[in-house]
């Protein structure tokens, strides 16, 4: 694949995620999606770049802000849309909603809405692969806020101590809901991680899926070779409010200028020509996904008590 083809393909994937989420925004006032949505708009390149470097047997463990990783790793779109609609043909039959996406057949191993709680689960996935002699890395995606949880400390220690190939991927958007890093953290994330004897890498250009893909490939190649964990921090920017379909610059907890500066570098905003070229096909795909969702049955009493034990 030429650099250009690669750029175009990753761009397409990122745009696809953005358009899906923009469709969610469009649909939201209709109350068809009755689920808290934590949009990835602004952060798509991270998922797309990282997943480019991953293999089908690699697993990702994600968060309530999970649309992007679910799609980038290959989770089916119609079933995602149907899940947001709370339909039986959704990927989890409507039990999951936006916050709990999973698609184990493509290595999406679940999303938790309790911040930080999949980190140790991913370490367990890495241990299972080692014991069962299965190939595949464990990648766990989490926000900057998740590093404040005790479980993060415990998980870094376990992964390093046992020498497990878990990639701790921090999507640092500088915010936990409305609180800034300075209000929450006394440490720098990577310096802290290195104190566990874990190699780290940082990417400032969170809009640059090519660079993210390249760096992730280097990191994962090294992990496949030495079986050790890594911590990777990607600086990124959330364009929308923490949860919900809107913007909230008026609230004053961050400046709109900051976000606009980021947008200026974001290919999905800048490269309007390519957007125009790719959009129609993507829109068609998304419309089909919406149609699939709308045609889905509602789950009901029969489903209520299945899959509990």
């Amino acid at each position, binding site marked *: 694949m030429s650099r250009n083809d690669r750029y175009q393909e990753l761009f397409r994937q990122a745009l696809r995620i953005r358009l899906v989420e923009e469709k969610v925004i469009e649909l939201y006032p209709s*109350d068809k999606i*009755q*689920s*808290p*949505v934590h949009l990835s708009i602004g952060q798509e390149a991270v998922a797309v770049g990282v997943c480019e470097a991953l293999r089908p047997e690699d697993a990702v463990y994600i968060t309530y802000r999970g649309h992007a990783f679910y799609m980038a790793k290959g989770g089916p779109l119609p079933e995602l849309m149907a899940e947001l609609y*709370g*339909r039986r043909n*959704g990927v989890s039959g*409507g*039990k*999951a*909603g*936006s*916050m*709990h996406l999973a698609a184990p057949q493509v290595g999406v191993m679940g999303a*938790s*809405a*309790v*911040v*930080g709680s999949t980190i140790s689960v991913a370490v367990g996935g890495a241990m299972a692969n080692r014991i069962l002699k299965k190939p595949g890395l464990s990648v766990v995606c989490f926000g900057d*806020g*998740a590093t*404040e*949880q*005790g479980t993060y400390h415990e998980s870094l220690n376990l992964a390093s101590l046992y020498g497990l190939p878990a990639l701790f991927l921090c999507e640092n958007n500088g915010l*936990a*809901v*409305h*609180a800034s890093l300075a*209000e*929450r*953290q006394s440490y720098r994330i990577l310096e802290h991680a290195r104190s566990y004897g874990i190699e780290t890498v940082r990417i400032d250009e969170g809009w640059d899926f090519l660079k993210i893909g390249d760096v992730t490939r280097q990191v994962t190649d090294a992990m496949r070779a030495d079986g050790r964990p890594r911590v990777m921090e990607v600086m990124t920017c959330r364009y929308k409010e923490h*949860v*919900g*379909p809107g913007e909230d610059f008026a*609230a*004053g*907890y961050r400046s709109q200028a900051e976000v606009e500066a980021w947008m200026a570098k974001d290919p999905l905003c800048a490269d309007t020509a390519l957007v125009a070229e790719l959009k129609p096909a993507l829109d068609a795909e998304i419309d089909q996904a919406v149609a699939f969702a709308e045609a889905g049955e*509602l*789950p*009901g*009493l029969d*489903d*209520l*008590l299945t899959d*509990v034990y």
Partner: protein
Amino acid sequence: MTISLPPRMTYRDGLATAMRRAMAESDNTIIIGQGVTDHKGIFGTTSDLHKEFPGRVIETPLSEDAVTGLCVGGAINGLYPINTHIRADFGLLAVNQLINMAAKYKYMFGGLFQVPMLVRMVIGRSWGQGAQHSQSLQSLFAHIPGLTVVMPSTPEAILRTYDHAVRTHKGPVVSFEHRLMYDLSFDTDQHPPVTDPFGSRLERRGKDVTIVATSIMVLEARRAAAHLAQHGIDCEVIDLHCVSRPDRKMIMDSVTKTGKLVVADTSWLPYGVSAEVCRIVAESDPGVLKAPVVNLGMALAPCPTAKSLEDVYYPDLHLTIDAVAKLVRGKADHGVPIPTHKSMTDFYKHFRGPF
């Protein structure tokens, strides 16, 4: 203590008023938690207090365990900490400190310490909260000696209970606030003054059946009672309120009179409030029961996200009315018409996310 209140008030206003009073009351009070200083201010209950009381409204990292420990340490050293969790589910990260430490710090040291503090846990419901944002975990804490667990169902209950917790009670209190009540308005004069702010409340007198309810189920029970009254069924409604210390006498007096008991709680039935109320009756005098007890609560599963599943997951007004009528009349075709509107369920329709 007398509390003068406006004639109508929302649950949120009750909370906001209680928070401001607690802060104004003493320089020892702190409010601490994630989001307590932001523009949303814990659903509008702590908004701007950090400006009014600088240094005493404290934003935190995502560190529920250590923040709870910090509150315990603050409490034994003279502070009155109020700690918030915007979902009770996140309180599960704090149970070591709440159960192994806060609940035991007084007894374990033979009374050398006191741990006055209030933990506010919000129960989520509706708009796709799903399995991890919807739990109502009162019975986990109410099982533990040393913890006082309350579930205020009105602004008045909030004010009286929180004032009592902050000013008088010297131990840890865990309060479960129901997110769906925040936007509701209440008449504040309909409640008789209570002698014990932590005590259960007799919400409505009746002779045919006793409904013991908690939190938002008290509202469902009151609505069901109003409807049933029009069809000749006279319900007595008890708001349990302090689930860790139910008023045994109030319950037994009522059940002795009515012979019939419905327990309506916000959580799962096993090991829950229903079980505890049944224990009280079974230990005291099961002979007063003229029929089996009917228990209403969440279906025995984690909470599903889809609205169509949620609708059958929680007991609603229909179910409550039907269950009570069946119990009182002793038959399925009890003749009481089920209202077409779903009461709280109707309200939930207007409750639009996100949170």
